[in-house]
Every structure is written in C-alpha cells, then in structure tokens.
C-alpha cells in the first residue's frame, strides 16, 4: 500500500546557502524508514504552488537571494497563512525564518517585507553571530547546531521562542531565546543542518504531517546512534 507524503522545498534555488539540503534529505529518508513514501517538490519564484503539501522546508540565502524571492513570497503569503492555520508543519531556517516574520531591516537601511506568519522582526547587525550552538527545547530536549547570521531577530508578544539558549547567541544574543514558533511553523537560526543531529525534532514535524494526512502516525524503528554521538561531540566543541 502506497502512503505518499509530500515535502515542499521553498525557493531551493535562491534560499539554500549552506547545508539546507540536509533538512530535506533527513525528512525524506526518515519518512522512508518509517514506512511512508516521500515525494520532494521544489517551488521557485513564478512556479505554480502545488495543491497537496504535507510539509514545507525553507532555508537561508544571501542578501541577493532574499531580494530575488521577496516579491514572490508576498504573493504566496495568504496561501502559507492558510496552510499554517490548517496545522501544516513548516521548518524555516535563517533567511526564510526572517522573511516569515513581519519585516527584515537590512544594514544599508532597506526594509524587506515579510509575511508576518511569525510574530517576529529582524534588524540587520554589523557583527555576525557565528559558532556552535546548543539550545533547550521544552519537549524534545537539547537542539544542537551551528549558527551564522548577522540579522538579529526579536520576538513579539504573539510568538513563542522555539528554544532557550544554553551556549551561543540565538535570536539576537541578548534575550536568550532561539527561534520562534506559531502552531506547527518553526523558525530557527540553527543550520548545521538542524535536523540530522536533532532527529526528535525531525520526527515531530513528520508525525504532524503524517497525522494531518492519515489521521495517525506509526513510527518505525530508526537507528540514531550516529546522531546521538554527533550531538555529543558538537556540544563539546569550541564555539
């Protein structure tokens, strides 16, 4: 019996700066290991947005990449809001995390409009927040990764942080928060990529996506020994 699950990569051409493919690959492989049939779709500016989408992933970009997609994303905004309210899980890393907020004010004084799905806004900074990072998620435990961003993101009253910082800078290096969430939409600065070394977070996204479509999720047994050891090493490395 075929049980397809459709993963949509948002703007892979322009917003895929460093390691973002890892998140897609992890979702795809784990779906297969759990006994489902993953389909990966790409959406680039000007494409027709597909009807059936179970899970959305988006990555980071250069400033030039953000400028290319920002208008297209505005057109997509209402559609993405509808999907979010229908509990479709989404994972946005770095650049798209910023543009899922209200706006991103660049260092040279331009304001890039976001779609306001997350109640956050971002201000371009002059120093990059870079290095190994460990944070604590209320449900899945420690999230480990690598952060590399100059934008500083601030949470509004309607956003929950995804995690709290244990070691590293996080959203802005000031308030100890990392990432943001609204329903099943998660924004984060952890790349590294975030999902390979945080398989419990990956499975949470998958469980929601599969549950939305089939009314239940029955996980298979996945061997995460390498991930466990890679996490331990990452947490012990210098920033």
């Amino acid at each position, binding site marked *: 019996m075929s049980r397809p699950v459709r993963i949509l990569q948002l703007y892979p051409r322009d917003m895929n700066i460093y390691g973002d493919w*890892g998140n897609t690959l992890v979702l795809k492989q784990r779906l297969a290991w759990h006994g489902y049939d993953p389909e990966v779709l790409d959406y680039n500016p000007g494409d027709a947005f597909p009807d059936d989408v179970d899970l959305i992933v988006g990555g980071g970009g250069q400033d030039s990449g953000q400028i290319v997609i920002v208008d297209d994303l505005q057109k997509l905004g209402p559609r993405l809001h509808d999907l979010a309210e229908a509990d479709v899980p989404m994972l946005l890393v770095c650049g798209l995390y910023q543009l899922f907020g209200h706006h991103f004010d660049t260092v040279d004084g331009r304001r890039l409009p976001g779609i306001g799905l997350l109640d956050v806004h971002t201000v371009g900074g002059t120093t990059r927040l870079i290095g190994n990072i460990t944070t604590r998620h209320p449900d899945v435990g420690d999230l480990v990764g690598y952060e590399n961003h100059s934008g500083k993101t601030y949470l509004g009253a309607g956003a929950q942080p995804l995690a709290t910082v244990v070691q590293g800078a996080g959203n802005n290096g000031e308030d100890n928060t990392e990432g943001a969430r609204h329903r099943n939409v998660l924004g984060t600065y952890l790349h590294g990529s975030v999902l*390979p070394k945080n398989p419990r977070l990956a499975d949470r996204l998958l469980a929601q996506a599969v549950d939305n479509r089939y009314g239940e999720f029955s996980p298979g047994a996945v061997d995460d020994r390498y991930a466990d050891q890679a996490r331990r090493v990452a947490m012990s490395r210098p920033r």
Partner: protein
Amino acid sequence: MPVTTVLGKVVRRAALARGGGSAFPGLFVERLDPSYVRRVLATLPRGVVVVSGTNGKTTTTKIVVDLLESQGLRVFTNRTGSNFVRGVAAALLGAVDVRGHLPADIAVLELDEAHAVHFVKEIAPRYCLLLNVMRDQLDRFGEIDHTARMLQSIARATTEAVVVNRDDPRLGAQVFAEGITGPTLRSYGTSAALSASFPSDDNLYGGSEGAPHPAPATYVDDTQLDSVEGDRAEISYAGGSHSAHLMLTGVYNVLNATAAIALTRAVLGGDLREPQMLEALSKVRPAFGRGETLQIDGQTCAMVLVKNPAGFRLALSSYDPADTATMIAINDNYADGRDMSWLWDVDFASLRAGGVTTVAGVRAYDMALRLRYDDVPVGVVTPDPERAVEEFLRSTTGQDKRIYCTYTAMLAIRKVLGTKGALDKVVA
C-alpha cells in the same frame, strides 16, 4: 633592511630549531619593521603575482612557479602553505641573503581572499590570477557575493594584467569586469563539452545552468581547456591547440594547469618559450596532500584534501571508487573551519557500491551520519585520525586506497604515513 633581515633570520632559526611553524618569525618582522615585505618585494624586476580564489590555490601556485621557472625566471614563492601576510614575511626571511637581497625575478604568492585584500593595499601586484568563488568557510566570509567583491578588489589593485576564470558565474560576469579599469583583462575556461565536469557553485546548489560562455568583449586573451582524456589534455590559446601529458590527477587540476598557462602567457608575453613551458607542465607533481599518491606495501594510497562542498564533489566525480578502499577523515579545528554544514551539500551516492571502510576525525560521527543518510555503508568510525589510518592500512592490505581528509586531519595522517617511509615514494 639588513638589520631587520639579520634579526629576522635569527628568530627564524630559533623557531625552526624549536620545531615551530612559519608564522612567528613573520609576526616578529611585521612588528619590528612593518614595511619590510613591501620594500623587499619592490626590488623584484618582474614584480608580484597574486593567486587567489576558493579552490585550487596551492596546486595552481605550484604549477605557475614551475612554468615560470621553465622560462628561466628565478621565482620566490610562499611554499610553506602559510598564506597570511606574515607567512610571506617568514618565507622571505628564508630566501633573502644577509644583506636583505632577494635573489629572484618575480614573486608568486598564494593568498587567501580575505588576506589578499589587505596585502594588495600594501603591495600592488603586477598580475593576479583569480580561480573561482565557491561556498567555503562561510563562517569567516558570510556569503559568496562578499567573497566575489574581495576578489574584485584584488583585481582593482593589480597594475598589469588580471587573469580570471570566465566560467565562474561571478568572476566571468560583465559586472565584475566593469569594475576593473586599470589592468588588462585576460581569461581562461573550458570548452562546452567539458562544462559538466566543472559545475559552478550555482550549479551545485540547483541554480541556473552556467554553461561556459565567452569572456566579455573587453578581455584581450583567452586560454581554453578543450578536452581531457586519461593523462592527456588539449589546451588552446592564441589560435592554436596544444597537447600536454600531465602527472596531475583530477580534472580540476587540469583546469588549474590551464589557469597557470594563461597566467604564464600574461607574464611572458612575446618572450614565451612554448616547448619549455609544456615540458615543465608534464612534470608538475601534485602539491602537498593534494592528490598525492603514495606507495604502501605494493599498493597505492592517494591523499585527497577536501575543504568545502565544491572541492569534495569535484574530487568524488574525478576519482573512480571501484576496487579502492576509501577512508574519510573530517576535523573541525580552526584551520578546517568549525562549521560542518557543508557535508550536507556533498552527494556521496558514488561511494554507495563500495562503502567507506573507515570514517575518522573529530567530526567522524557527523560524517558517518551524513553517509548513513546517503545509504553508504560505513565500517569503522573512530575520532582519532592517526589510530584510524593505522587500522585502515592494516585492514585493507592488498587493496588500493584513497583517503579524503580535511587539512588538519591530513597533517595527522601524513605523520603516520611518514613513519612508514611511504612519503619518499610519491609515484604521481
């Protein structure tokens, strides 16, 4: 100048005696006499060549030096691989005589993008060779558009000729050329038939097809790699096609050789003695740790340095894994880059059939995890590269071997191979 030279040489000798690296004597000179490097290099009759870009600097610099020497030039270079300004200062201390005289006609310096930007403010190069802009060490440089701007500022500071890779979407762009008004612009690249072997950064990341394109009209000269078959390459320039045998392995090294020819032609102009250049090209050996092939107990063991996703992908597409035992060693020390994200931008499917015998390095488990998600079977996983390579050699007796490794892992592995006497027997 003599005072700085003598003091610097004393410090250098002391540092060498203590087994130290090359940077400290350079730092000493930099502090004592900040304009020392500029003054010494200013005495060179043919000036300074800067080689920069993301991938292939060390190998290309080595080829350029050999080709220029084939033309009878005395060449000073920063051979130690220490490519910071103070690394150049340290290399100078080893080369000058006690009166501070540098017995050379021209200097060929490998400089990392960020350091080159500062270097060219002090010392305007007469020539520069710009190789490519790939995603590498974004923890240092932020984004690749920024890296391209750094290379452009090197080109702007150059006085005579700039040689760029026209197939690189950023370096070969009209906008890049427009920003360079002083020096003559020259280019190198590949034929359309070879474009698939040289994906640009944009190709690697699903971007638009960067088919080879002619250089912008303002470029006065072009050197093109037409074809590669086995150890023979066809390279054309000035309206003629030339055949060369190479000891270098990996198609990207043949492109580096093409770049070196373009640069040599720019420096020599009408004085170029072509047979000598092609003869020298056929004898160039790979640089330290970059595609060196050693002989161990009757089998070959190839070392392939990998530093970024583009380099790793090009290496995997260059070498056939069949009948070869594979080891991968990944460290995340400062010199390697701390960010492991890049491993997820490399496609390891070509290793699926044969698997990877040994995975080593500080980030061995990150690497093993990456391979697991590409369904590549993994044998031993162990963080210590030195112990890992011992075990790898033991467990693969009778097989040819290939070791992909990051910079500091390469140093550790080379140490072990050195104790086996293998390093004296570089075969290619």
